[in-house]
């Protein structure tokens, strides 16, 4: 039995006592125990168990690496990760002997410093046989003992170093209190013992072995178990922000950051700081990193929280760099080239191009990046087969693999960040997105945001890039832009937020969302056009919810506010303006993304069909039903060229 004592209380009571306790723990703790036994005896005279004081929460904890000879025999508090546990060892505490001659049981003999002295003669008056005593195992008292190895946590390891370890000795109740992989804080007494080579040997090894006699163990990562849908836990990035080391400190710092009024802009600036402009694209990418809330309804319906983004643009517009940067930032990120992604499988295939001899790795990127961001470069070069897999991944967030007659459905809760080059080497502004990148519209519609990154020949930007490269090489990197979070802080910020912040829509925000959505749809009803143009669909409203949740997360806010929704609308609109604008009319048209055909185009086709039908009817009336097909077609050969799929219907009618 034990009594936990907070060292802070000891300090508050008497700083001098605290100092003595830390410096001379062996003596002071023995006194504590005596006092405690006294008290117990007074309160409950029948209480017979031994009770022990366990001190915890020392005022200062020491880094495992900094333990040095001056800490020997002192009370220390260290944080670390358990990497190994020994099996439980029964340790003899009291031995009982029996005389082989007369069967007399001796009084229990206490074990003194690891040794027990066997009585030489039987104590029974009548017997007095010598060397007759034997140990009776099942009447002895044993105590549990265990040794664990504690290792430094990754954030305490200096650059170019490897983690240190220390052995910790656990007694009684502490046995099996921690498992390998647990992060714990241990309070104990640091001890050293000399190594005896053996009683016969003359020389003595001057080396001492050190260990910590554990008084108290506290798990520091309990809270992690309660968080569901957190980012992967044994990831380096995530663990940096997790609750150890100077954790509370760090979290406080992050929280402080989140309270800054300009945190959104600051985060935007911190994302790939050496890529300029493209601010709205970066905002979209930020939303992807933070992500929305995944929702699983009791009915079994799933709503994904991951935001998918497609970047389309000219070569040389640092798309790939953005992707690389995102890959660095996102925990469990996977970076792959569309050329070599086979979407499924945990293994990969090396393929060799028969013509050029280029080797390509086809890897199962999507499964591997479960709960991360999957960055796919050269999305347009992806094989159709792999792409069709993406449909499932991007909506259902699973991948089905058929192997040996069994269809396995693997989780692929991944956000997809893809970038594609226009099919002609440069983006043709006169054609739609669909025509520019030969991607099926069904796939396109699954992206929440589609950004067009066009290379406008801009001397200003070029100059800036040139200046940046030069400064990078001449070892005077530009004066660090102010108010930019460094990479590790950004990673910590994101993973903390993903783990702990789960914002809910406020009523006002929901109202704003509805209002905005209705307004968006109404925009399609142009007074000029007869037919309704769809400017928003249900998919967009889901995207909007995800985006606004992500935006709230950036502020560590548990509530999605109106301003998040407004910003989400703005982001969506910016992205749509770039990609879903019908170049013929200059308006936003979701049909362009959903079906690949804009409604103005569709209307034009309809008109054409009607006109042709009229013409054909006219001709038929003139020439009668026996008119030859060729004659009908002849005058409209030009039409045929323009619109082959439309004319195909004509002969039938």
């Amino acid at each position, binding site marked *: 039995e034990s009594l936990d004592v907070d060292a802070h209380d000891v300090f508050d009571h008497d700083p001098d006592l605290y100092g003595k306790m830390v410096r001379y723990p062996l003596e002071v703790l023995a006194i504590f125990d005596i006092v405690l036994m006294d008290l117990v005896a007074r309160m409950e005279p029948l209480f017979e168990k031994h009770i022990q004081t366990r001190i915890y929460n020392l005022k200062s904890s020491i880094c495992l690496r900094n333990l040095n000879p001056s800490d020997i025999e002192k009370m220390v508090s260290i944080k670390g990760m358990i990497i190994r546990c020994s099996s439980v060892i029964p340790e003899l505490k009291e031995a009982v002997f029996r005389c082989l001659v007369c069967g007399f049981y001796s009084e229990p003999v206490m074990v003194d410093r690891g040794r027990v002295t066997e009585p030489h003669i039987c104590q029974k008056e009548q017997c007095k046989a010598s060397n007759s005593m034997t140990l009776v195992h099942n009447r002895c008292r044993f105590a549990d003992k265990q040794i664990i190895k504690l290792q430094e946590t990754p954030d305490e390891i200096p650059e170019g170093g490897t*983690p240190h*370890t220390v052995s910790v000795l656990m007694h009684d109740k502490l046995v099996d209190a921690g498992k390998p992989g647990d992060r714990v804080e241990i309070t104990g007494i640091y001890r050293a013992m000399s190594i005896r080579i053996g009683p016969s040997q003359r020389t003595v090894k001057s080396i001492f072995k050190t260990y910590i006699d554990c008084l108290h163990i506290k798990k520091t990562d309990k809270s992690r178990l309660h968080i569901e849908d957190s980012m992967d836990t044994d990831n380096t990035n995530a663990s940096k922000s997790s609750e150890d080391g100077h954790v509370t400190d760090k979290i406080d710092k992050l929280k402080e950051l989140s309270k800054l009024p300009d945190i959104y802009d600051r985060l935007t600036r911190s994302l790939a700081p050496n890529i300029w402009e493209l601010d709205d694209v970066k905002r979209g990418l930020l939303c992807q990193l933070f992500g929305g809330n995944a929702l699983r309804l009791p009915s079994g319906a799933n709503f994904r929280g991951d935001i998918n983004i497609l970047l389309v643009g000219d070569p040389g517009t640092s798309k790939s760099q953005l992707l690389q940067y995102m890959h660095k930032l996102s925990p469990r990120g996977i970076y792959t080239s569309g050329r070599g992604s086979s979407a499924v499988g945990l293994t990969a295939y090396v393929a060799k191009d028969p013509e050029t001899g280029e080797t390509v790795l086809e890897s199962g990127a999507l499964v591997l990046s479960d709960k991360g961001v999957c960055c796919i470069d050269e999305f347009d070069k992806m094989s159709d087969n792999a792409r069709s897999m993406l449909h499932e991944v991007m909506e259902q967030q699973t991948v089905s693999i058929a192997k040996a007659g069994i269809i396995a459905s693997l989780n692929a809760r991944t956000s997809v960040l893809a970038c594609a080059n226009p099919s002609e080497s440069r983006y043709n502004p006169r054609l739609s997105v669909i025509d520019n990148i030969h991607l099926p519209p069904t796939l396109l519609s699954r992206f929440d945001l589609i950004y067009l990154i066009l290379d406008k020949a801009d001397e200003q930007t070029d100059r800036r890039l040139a200046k940046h490269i030069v400064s990078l090489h*001449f070892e005077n990197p530009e004066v660090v832009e102010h108010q930019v979070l460094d990479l590790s802080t950004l990673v910590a910020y994101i993973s903390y937020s993903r783990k702990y912040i789960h914002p809910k829509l406020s009523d006002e925000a929901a109202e704003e969302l509805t209002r905005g959505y209705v307004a968006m749809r109404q925009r399609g009803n142009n007074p000029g056009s007869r037919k309704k143009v769809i400017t928003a669909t249900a998919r967009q409203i889901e995207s909007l919810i995800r985006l606004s949740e992500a935006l709230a997360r950036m502020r560590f806010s548990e509530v999605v506010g109106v301003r998040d929704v407004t910003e989400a609308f703005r982001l969506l609109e910016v992205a749509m303006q770039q990609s879903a604008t019908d170049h013929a009319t200059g308006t936003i048209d979701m049909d362009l993304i959903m079906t690949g055909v804009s409604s103005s185009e569709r209307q034009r086709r309809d008109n054409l069909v009607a006109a042709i039908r009229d013409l054909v009817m006219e001709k038929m009336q003139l020439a009668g039903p026996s008119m030859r097909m060729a004659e009908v077609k002849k005058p409209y050969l030009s039409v045929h060229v323009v619109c082959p799929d439309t004319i195909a219907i004509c002969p039938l009618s």
Partner: protein
Amino acid sequence: RRESEIHRRRKAERMVGPQYDLVGNPLGAVRATFERAAAAESGGRDPVAAFRSKDWGASEVFRSFLFEQGGLDKVPLLDASNLGLIKPNTLVRFRGMVQDMLGNEFYAGAFKDGSTWRTNKFTDFSPFAMPHPCDSHLWERHLFHCVPVPGQNSWTLESSPGPDLRQMANCLTPEQREKRKRDGDDDAMDVSENGNGGSSSCSKKPKEDDVQIPSSSAEMPASENVPQMNGNDHHIPGSSFSCLVKIYDMPESQVKLNDVAEFIGVYTFDPELAAPNDNSDDIMFDLIEDVTAQLPPSKVPRLHCLVWRKLSSVDFLAKHPAVEPLPSLLKGIRQSLLSHLTLVLGKDDLAANCLLLHLLSRLRTRVDVVTVGRLSLNFTGFNRESVSIFGKQLNTLIQGLMPYSQAIPLSIEYLNTATLQPRKDNKSGRLVTGVLQLPQGAHLTFDETLLQSGSLASKGVENTVLLKNLMESQMVEYDFEYYKLEMATDVQLLTLSEGKSNILPSDLVVPFRASTVSAVNATSEELESWRWYLATVRSLPQSSEPEIYQTIQDEMVSAMRNDRSLGCTELSRWLTMAQITASSFGEKSLSLEHWQMAKELERLRKERMQ
């Protein structure tokens, strides 16, 4: 009184040194200096407390002996071949890479023997019974597991040979050794007597102290003394030799993982302690097992380091030609190296130029995820036949030029089976090395022509990710079971492949066009001068005048105007190439001329790509 003290010190300093056999009995000098220093401090209540994690003058003696009096050449170099020949408790050198850091070890550094303070520094054993803990001081030292540098090329070993041990062993009979030791001991006696006059604590020093351990081991028959080499069960693949170095008085952060260094110190080995002791009666010892327990002293020698220094590629050169690296001199060597490279590459001038830049590249800075200065190279257009000709020649040449290099045949089977990632084995507490645990400045050549279509298992996928990471960001992830830790590296990477390698995306892709096949051999003088050239140029400082910044920026802007596909990576590479070109001529700063040369190279390369 003060004057006499100063006088005494000076005298002591003079007396220490050559009189001692610092090579044969380093511990004698250590102890003598300690006792003298302790005596000097004897006024205080606790005279030796001041010596904790501090040098009392012993390292100083060795430092001046080694570097100022040329003693370094007299110290034998410890390696697998002479492990058995070196006598314990003598001074040795070891050159190697820090493969693992085993934390620190506490030992009774100073203790009181009667009224005299004695030290256990630089040794594992004490000739005396340990006194009560009150009379001893616990000090700490850092343990490093060091191995011969992976991929170390044979020429580096010739650069600093120790004295021939076989000879030494013959001429140094035990009697002589004894005598020397006694001489040294007598000197110490003289010093203390002269210096301290009537001071009792020191002059009572028993004479045998210094001699006891060395003599006890020297009396052993040599055969018993020889530690057995048994390389098979060692965990370093391909290497059967390693050394446990114990370093004193230094913040641990000074030594980094994968550093290459020379350690000079006392080699200790006690056959009595080397024998496994199964009869350990205390269960505690079995449980708090030590990492060092798996490194039996019979296989892994202990070296108590007195002096150490980091080694760079310059240190491996045979002689240090005391020549100023003048541009005119470097230019000449550059020309001869370049023409040799051209010959090796079958008269492919462009490839030779690129290879030269590649060999001279090094990681300059790291900003966030961007690395500046590296230039990995991919020669395309190889097939199995041409690799067997040119690849072989190229490998031989690189082996002759770079201090550490490895050629890796990149086949499916290799990717699926090789252990590239270093991994911490938490059971044994040691870092299990992988192929990618490399020192800074190592060179790797991948032969991708062996790669056929096929499936990669999960290990193969992990390996390719590691390689790609190394290529792109010069980082290697080490596996610590519960988390991964990224270690920065600076490794030069050359890939020979059929088409452009997408598994190992290099900075510079050059289609290789050989026209002739000629067997070429370089003389050893040539090789030496080239090694010197490469090492010197790589270490040249780079500065530049601000005027050039503007010119280059303008150049870049106009280049971008002409070719919209140019991005950050290309332009950055151009600048890297220009900078290396400048230093290849021995120039410290970049000029427009070099920029144009780099651009011309790039133009030729682009032409060939089409």
